[in-house]
């Protein structure tokens, strides 16, 4: 993706170790990355940790950024960090999710247990939330979402399909649409 020349000069200064230039990059991309991380992690403090790590890694790895817009590159790092952070901090929850899945196929949701969308999103896996956040919040295409998550396109399609089905179940939208 092409960059405007002025921002290209900022990136060039960053490559030379200019911390002020790097902070301009933080200003430009930080808020959207933080919002996306928060949608995935469901926790403000964890999201801030993930984005802090994202930018510190970006600072160290500027050599791996080729002549391109740093946005998608930063998003890839942020998604990795967000999912890794979630896994590290929610190992126990991940285990229970796994046992839950082993315990049985489709989870019906009674009318009484219908959740609002916020709570329904809590029930998705971090990987599903990442796909949903990139596709529906950042408005990335399936292909761009796959690149950001560094997974095959079919994996993204599957995560989106499974995630949406689960959200419909949890919010009762499936019943409403039937």
């Amino acid at each position, binding site marked *: 993706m092409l960059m405007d020349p002025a921002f290209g000069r900022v990136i060039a200064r960053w490559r030379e170790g200019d911390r002020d230039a790097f*902070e301009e990059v933080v200003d430009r991309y930080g808020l959207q990355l*933080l919002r996306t991380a928060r949608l995935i992690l469901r926790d403000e403090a964890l*999201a*801030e940790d993930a984005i*802090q790590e994202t*930018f510190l890694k970006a600072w160290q790895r500027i050599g791996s950024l080729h002549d391109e817009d740093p946005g998608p590159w930063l998003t890839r790092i942020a998604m990795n960090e967000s999912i890794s952070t979630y896994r590290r901090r929610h190992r126990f929850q991940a285990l229970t999710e796994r046992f839950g899945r082993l315990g049985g196929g489709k989870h019906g949701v009674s009318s009484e247990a219908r959740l609002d969308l916020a709570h329904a999103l809590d029930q998705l896996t971090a990987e599903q939330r990442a796909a949903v956040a990139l596709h529906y919040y950042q408005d990335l295409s399936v292909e761009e979402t796959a690149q950001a998550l560094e997974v095959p396109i079919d994996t993204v399609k599957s995560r989106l399909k499974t995630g949406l089905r689960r*959200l419909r179940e949890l919010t009762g939208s499936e019943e409403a649409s039937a």
Partner: protein
Amino acid sequence: MSDDFEKNLRDHLHREAEETREFPRRLRGRIRDGIAPRARARMAPQLALAGALVLVAIAVLAFRNPTIINVVTTSIKGLIEPSPSPTPQPFLCQDQSGGSSSVATLTNIRAASHAGDGYDRIVFDFTGAIPSWDLTRQESPTFVRDASGQQVTLDGSAGLKLAFRGADVYAPTGPAGSTPGGPPTDLQPRLTSIREIAQIGNFEHQLTYGIGLSSSQCVRVLQLTNSRLVIDVATSGSASTTAAPTPLPTQPAATDLGAFGCLDHSGGTNSGPAMQLTAVRVAHQTGFDRIVFEFAPQAGATAHIPAYTVSRQASAKFVKDPSGLPVTMRGSAGLRIVFHGASGATSYSGSRDQIVNLPVVQEVEQLGDFEAVLSWGAGLSQPSCIRTLELPNPTRLVIDVQTP
């Protein structure tokens, strides 16, 4: 129906995301700290190994050619002794500024007498490059704390204010509020000229120290290798000393409005809902340039002047809040005006960067408006004394900047 669900989901995600309204200042600070140059102590093993290899190499060379010892000892002397300035720098009886726009951490402050050479010395040690700094001389040892606005009087009868932009204090892990092993917050060397050094501000990467002097003295500033900023203050008896700046004689018409002072000012109160900035005006009048900040209370609230500090500085360089980005205004000196409990985000529709080119006030620009802390800067053509007036109906803070 599926489209409706996806639209609802998209709307919900946007609403939820926008609950995070801004990139948090604390996170920006954590990232900034993370990319700061590391303390040299972390490289100790590598440096020790390198040093050992150099010593072995020197021993081998010395065995082959004994004269190499003289060359090496001369070089080592050059490394361990404070590097002299390329040309001897004079003591100046004026405000000074310098440094770079890098981010740095202050690790130590030291003071010592150099009585034989006619000065007292303070050394500020940093990791990273020396940050942007400015040094202003004042006629009293009373300073205004940033950001509380409280006044503090140090030992002595005159003062220096040293402000660093883009600087933090090295704060090793310790109980909240303490910095064990960090630089002292109040040092009282009680030397001939330098009586006391106290931290008077550490707010949004603006780090400020007040220095109490026994009398008004001229100053030499040296930026040495290894990120050391040295302030040499002449001891009494030096022929080069002149008094710190004092107000010019005022016009009779202005006398009724109060005296000008070459000091920082503070006042107002931080109570109740944030006051709303409605206007910023700048104009020249006989003997002074006037900057007016006009405020209105929120609905149902009582009008008051928000707590403020007006800080003089020796350059027109400022730092934006909260981005920390440097900004340079027109002029060679400045005023930094900070209000606590005030905002113009929704109430102020005027220009946030006014280039006025008056006799002294050259430019007035908003530096920040975040979490009810509103800050503006003024670029001045020369260091000037000021006075502040708190006026009602409408609620106004007036800053008069004395003109020649």
